[in-house]
């Protein structure tokens, strides 16, 4: 790498990877999932408005980190398995089932995949639940979890801020704050913040554009126009 520049257009040969911040947290009645929107190939930002929170069923979503190709295809498989399973069941699949299927794909192909996943959602048996599936394909049920390269910067913040039985609004504020702090320190995370909130009442999405992401210490807020530019 040349100092200050891109060595020989390294993004042409680097894998498309989601050096990422993703997270999911449960609250009283559901879950909130959150992610940044950056996808990079080496140092080049291949997509600055990525959606890393992908639906598996109507009420189960997955946060993807690692190789974009691996996680997209893995998600598609799980979507397909769940569709079939839902038909056999004659009912909506459970979050646990979705997590188990994703875990099985990740575990059995661990030598070929680069995939860190968070499966979360709502079902009528368990209510809201969050499952973490880190690199080796372990399946861990937790009240909240963070993942991706950016997560390393916000362990302390999340341990401090998370508490059980938050309200929906409190939980979403927690997720946005955590992701924004990760984006502030991790070069592989950035862009916008997306959240998905899932409860018995359905799915809500929020979108925080890049120029409205909370600004952390040492940075400047971007100048705001009176009327934001809209394309």
């Amino acid at each position, binding site marked *: 790498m040349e100092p200050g520049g891109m060595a020989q257009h390294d993004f042409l040969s680097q894998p498309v990877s989601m050096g990422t911040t993703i997270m999911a947290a449960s609250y009283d009645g559901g879950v909130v999932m959150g992610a940044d929107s950056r996808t990079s190939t080496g140092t080049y930002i291949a997509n600055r408005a990525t959606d890393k929170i992908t639906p598996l069923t109507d009420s189960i979503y997955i946060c993807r980190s690692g190789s974009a190709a691996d996680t997209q295809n893995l998600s598609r498989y799980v979507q397909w398995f769940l569709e079939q*399973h839902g038909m*056999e*069941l004659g009912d909506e699949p459970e979050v*646990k089932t979705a997590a*188990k299927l994703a875990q099985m794909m990740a575990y059995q192909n661990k030598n070929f995949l680069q995939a860190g996943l968070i499966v979360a959602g709502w079902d009528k*048996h368990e209510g809201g639940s969050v499952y973490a599936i880190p690199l080796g394909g372990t399946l861990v049920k937790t009240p909240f979890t963070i993942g991706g390269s950016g997560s390393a910067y916000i362990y302390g913040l999340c341990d401090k801020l998370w508490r059980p039985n938050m309200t929906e609004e409190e939980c979403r504020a927690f997720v946005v704050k955590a992701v924004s702090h990760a984006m502030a320190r991790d070069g592989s995370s950035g862009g916008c913040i997306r959240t998905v909130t899932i409860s018995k009442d359905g799915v809500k999405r929020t979108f925080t554009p890049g120029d409205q992401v909370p600004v952390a210490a040492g940075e400047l807020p971007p100048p705001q126009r009176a009327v934001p530019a809209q394309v």
Partner: protein
Amino acid sequence: MSGIGTGYDLSTGTFSPDGRVFQTDYAQKAVDNSGTVVGIRCKDGVVLGAEKLIISKMLEQHSNRRTFPADRHAGMAVAGVAADGRSVVSRAMAEANQYKSIYGEAIPGHVLAERLGSFMHLFNLYGGYRPYGVSALLATYGKEGPQLYLVEPSGVTYRYFGTAVGKGRQGAKNEIEKLKLGEMSCREGIQAVAKILHQVHDEEKGFEMELAWVCEESGRHFQRVPQQLADEAEAAAKAALEAEDMDD
């Protein structure tokens, strides 16, 4: 060609002109001639009972089993050809095991029943195979609560509040209809089943009763009813029947 099948009953590969698959019907007959098997769904679980005719005085007690677990929360009672029954149970175990491996959850009753139905149906499709001579009563207790299913040799599956198959099925079904299943506990259920089995049994030879349940008391595990409870239920059933005879 003579006889009832007139040549159309030699394999499941051929329909008869009036639209029957005789081998399937014959398989059902194998079930109809079998010892009676009864199943009822009570408010807190499912009770299965089988009438095992004692074919020889030299037979060991408890041999020739008719009730089998297929998983922790599911089990079956089979009527018909015992060896076929064992094979169906083996398949049920495999399905339950595989479902748990993939989905990380116990297989729901209706899924297991449907899969067993599909499995048994396969043997009605090919010339070289014969259908299973077995009807299986399937008792499960999962998230959906206690459930009772019947899988027939044709592959048809039903869900029941209570039903019976085998020789005494008609009488047994009449008796089951008189029960208030929605208010009955499994403790009462085993006695009811014991009574019905004794009522419909009409042979010189004796029989051994096999009772199994999956209920709250068994921790939602399918198991044979503990011997002491089964003996008590049988004694109470006999006493009740004798009292009724006195009234007549």
